[in-house]
């Protein structure tokens, strides 16, 4: 039990190091990408080249992604200081989110469905 916790903390520390390294790289080279995206890309590269085995960070990564929702809660609480903005623009915001999400859903699913069917016919 204790050993598992130490391993989990160790893996999370490694993932934190990867993230901090990408934060440093983004600010040092003024890269126009978010640090999180660079970190994800670096990890994918390391996995695919076999430089890092996925099991070395798997437990920590799955723990963090399982509780990913938790980290959004303190950020979402900041909404309480935007009460007025949402009261006066509630309708516009709802139409915008609902409308653009509907369009995105239909376009993404429509294209993927259509192209996959074509491919199946060719086979």
């Amino acid at each position, binding site marked *: 039990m204790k050993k598992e916790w130490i391993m989990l903390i160790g893996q*999370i520390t490694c*993932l*934190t190091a*990867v*993230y901090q390294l*990408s934060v440093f790289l983004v600010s040092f080279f003024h890269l*126009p990408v*978010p640090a*999180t*995206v660079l*970190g*994800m*890309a670096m*990890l*994918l590269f390391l*996995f*695919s080249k076999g430089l890092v085995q*996925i099991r070395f*960070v798997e437990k920590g*990564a*799955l723990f*963090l*992604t399982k509780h*990913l*929702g*938790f*980290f*959004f*809660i*303190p*950020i*979402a609480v*900041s*909404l*309480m*200081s*935007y009460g007025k903005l949402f009261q006066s*623009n509630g309708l*516009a*915001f709802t*139409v*915008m*989110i*609902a409308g*653009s*999400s*509907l*369009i*995105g*859903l239909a*376009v*993404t*699913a*429509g*294209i*993927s*469905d259509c*192209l*996959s069917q074509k*491919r199946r016919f060719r086979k």
Partner: protein
Amino acid sequence: MTAFFVAATIGAYFLSRMLARRFPIPLTTPVLTSTVLLIALLSTANIPYRDYIPAKEIMTFLLGPATVSLAVPLYQNWNVLKERFFPAVAGLVVGTLSTIASAVWIASAFGLSETIQASAAVKAITTPVAMEAAVIVGGDPAIAVAFVIMAGIFGAVFGPFVLTLFKITDPFSRGLSIGTVSHGIGTSQAVLEGPIQGAVSSAAMGLSAIFTSLVLPWLFPIL
């Protein structure tokens, strides 16, 4: 006081997870119920948001590493995605562009400010990336988070229903579109539909975040 806020947030999170397990419907998404609970608590006690900020800083320390960790499920689901790579990428790219463009255009049609439009452009992608990407194009990270959460909840609640209405029955396409427009909150709902939907949705959420952050600095000024 900060220790109390941290404890209250963790407590709210565990309560809302129990609620979500007991009533597995999209409206019980833990992010939504915990946030409502905490805002209700703070406003009833007449505590201003700025008192909560130190606690927030402590709790979000691991958000960056947690987002980077999404590379693991992304890598694990790579084979499902590779098999239908071209339809997936075509759907994801055009779908992402259309959801960004329509969000910005609807916002400007309502006469909303440039800051709001920039924050709306990132509403389909996962929160930490959305916050950073919004700032790059002149948006407000907190408003971006609000839109991201709204889009996530919308996709989770109405996504499956809308797709059935459009006669999309293919599990791969259903997962892909839910992950593309409603990130992690939508993905948590897609998992309930089936393993293919869940795997493709989590991969799509990662890829659309990467694609959006790369294309937005060039796309936003021409919209």
